[in-house]
């Protein structure tokens, strides 16, 4: 892995480019379902032109702070994610770093829901915390399983350990659980109850203008960060024939992101109350068995 100082400058624009591409793909799919002309990203213009608003007795500091925390955490989460052989910082505990940054979403979404002092966003903020309690443990065990296979928490080592066989081949359960938990942590379809239409847009219900744009951007960046991390953890990082490493990373990340965006539209919202038992009684034991299997393989080798 090569760490470069300009990697830190390049990281935000790369993530934003992925987020923009994902949002554009999503709006094309929306337009196709509605039988209407696709105008991707026009709503960004609308949000720039829209006034900000306040609600009575809102906690503006926490309200705005939550949205900014979401964006910052989503970008920082990718600091240890390599693009080919380049990485901003190949931390010795990169996997835990990713996990710690992505958990900031718990606080951020709850704060945005709380700060506006309005019933629907408040309820939706709590919904996300409940969703967090459902997806987080299976998600952590999926991450740990990949780290276990490599015997290291360093993302560079995890990639190196997949030189012969990608982890997705012998850790399919962990990979699937990871793919489920990424949209859950980004409260993206079908785990979008925190931003559900049944609650007037949920935590988004009172946000307008730039505040709304920042929050939605943070959500997309978080989804991109999650999709990007799947590549070094399970899909062999930048390895592949012909193309250079960074190109393979881009291709694989785009594929995972497109899969998440496309698949999310095929299901209704999975409500937290229905997901809770599935997470604790199916996903968690499944990841534990997967981790046990990987440990046995590692010990036997």
């Amino acid at each position: 892995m090569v760490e470069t100082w300009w990697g830190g400058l390049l990281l935000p624009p790369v993530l934003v480019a992925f987020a923009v591409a994902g949002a554009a793909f999503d709006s094309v799919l929306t337009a196709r379902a509605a039988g209407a002309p696709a105008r991707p990203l026009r709503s960004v213009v609308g949000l720039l032109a829209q006034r900000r608003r306040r609600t009575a007795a809102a906690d503006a500091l926490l309200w705005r702070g939550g949205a900014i925390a979401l964006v910052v955490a989503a970008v920082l989460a990718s600091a240890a994610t390599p693009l080919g052989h380049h990485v901003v910082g190949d931390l010795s505990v990169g996997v835990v770093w990713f996990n710690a940054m992505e958990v900031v979403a718990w606080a951020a979404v709850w704060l945005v829901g709380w700060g506006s002092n309005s019933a629907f966003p408040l309820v939706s903020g709590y919904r996300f915390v409940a969703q967090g309690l459902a997806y987080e443990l299976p998600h952590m065990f999926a991450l740990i399983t990949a780290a276990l296979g490599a015997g290291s928490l360093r993302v560079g080592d995890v990639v190196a350990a997949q030189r012969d066989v990608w982890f997705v081949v012998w850790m399919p359960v962990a990979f699937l659980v990871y793919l489920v938990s990424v949209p859950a942590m980004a409260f993206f379809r079908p785990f979008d109850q925190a931003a559900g239409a049944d609650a007037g847009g949920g935590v988004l219900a009172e946000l307008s203008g730039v505040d709304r744009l920042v929050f939605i951007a943070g959500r997309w960046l978080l989804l991109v960060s999650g999709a990007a991390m799947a590549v070094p953890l399970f899909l062999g990082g930048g390895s592949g024939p012909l193309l250079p490493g960074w190109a393979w990373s881009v291709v694989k990340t785009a594929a995972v992101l497109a899969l998440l965006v496309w698949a999310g539209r095929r299901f209704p919202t999975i409500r937290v109350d229905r997901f809770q038992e599935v997470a604790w009684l199916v996903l968690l034991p499944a990841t534990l068995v997967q981790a046990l299997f990987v440990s046995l393989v590692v010990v036997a080798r």
Partner: protein
Amino acid sequence: MWRDVVFWACAVLAVGAAVAVFRVDSMARATFALLASFIATAVTVLLLDLAYLGVLVVLMMVMEMVVMAVFMVMYMMNPAGLMPMTMVHNQRGALAIATGVFLLLATGVLVTPWPESAAPRPADPARQLGEALMGDRMPTMIVLGLALFATMVSTVVLATDRGRYDRFGDRLDRDHPHDPTSGGLGR
């Protein structure tokens, strides 16, 4: 040099945020001021090259503070601080205890003969720290961890309002539990 700057910035931030916990009148703000204080502390841990511990402090504290905020808000009459309220109770006693503890710790810091060593830092200080703390007491620590976990589970079991007899009937013969809301699998 830059370590000194970061350390002092984090130290000031940690203490400032900790003071804010008792100055604000909203539970949400108090909780997240406490979180800011913990995160500043985590950065000082990172400065000691204890990457795992530092990042873990951030990870655990974010989750814990969010859960704490939920409970604090749930139990407080006035969680959002719409009414004037104070976070401080028993001021005199608290002041005396806090001053006493601070003096004790500060004295300890100043009079302890800290070892100085010319040896280079180990490659993985977190591992060294773990071995120094636990070392040959590892089985004890493992048992302790299990005991802690068992205590938590049994506390929840004892505290819960609804046990399996409420859910599955006195003879445990219901196919589907009586729940206010289905958990998704009907278990």
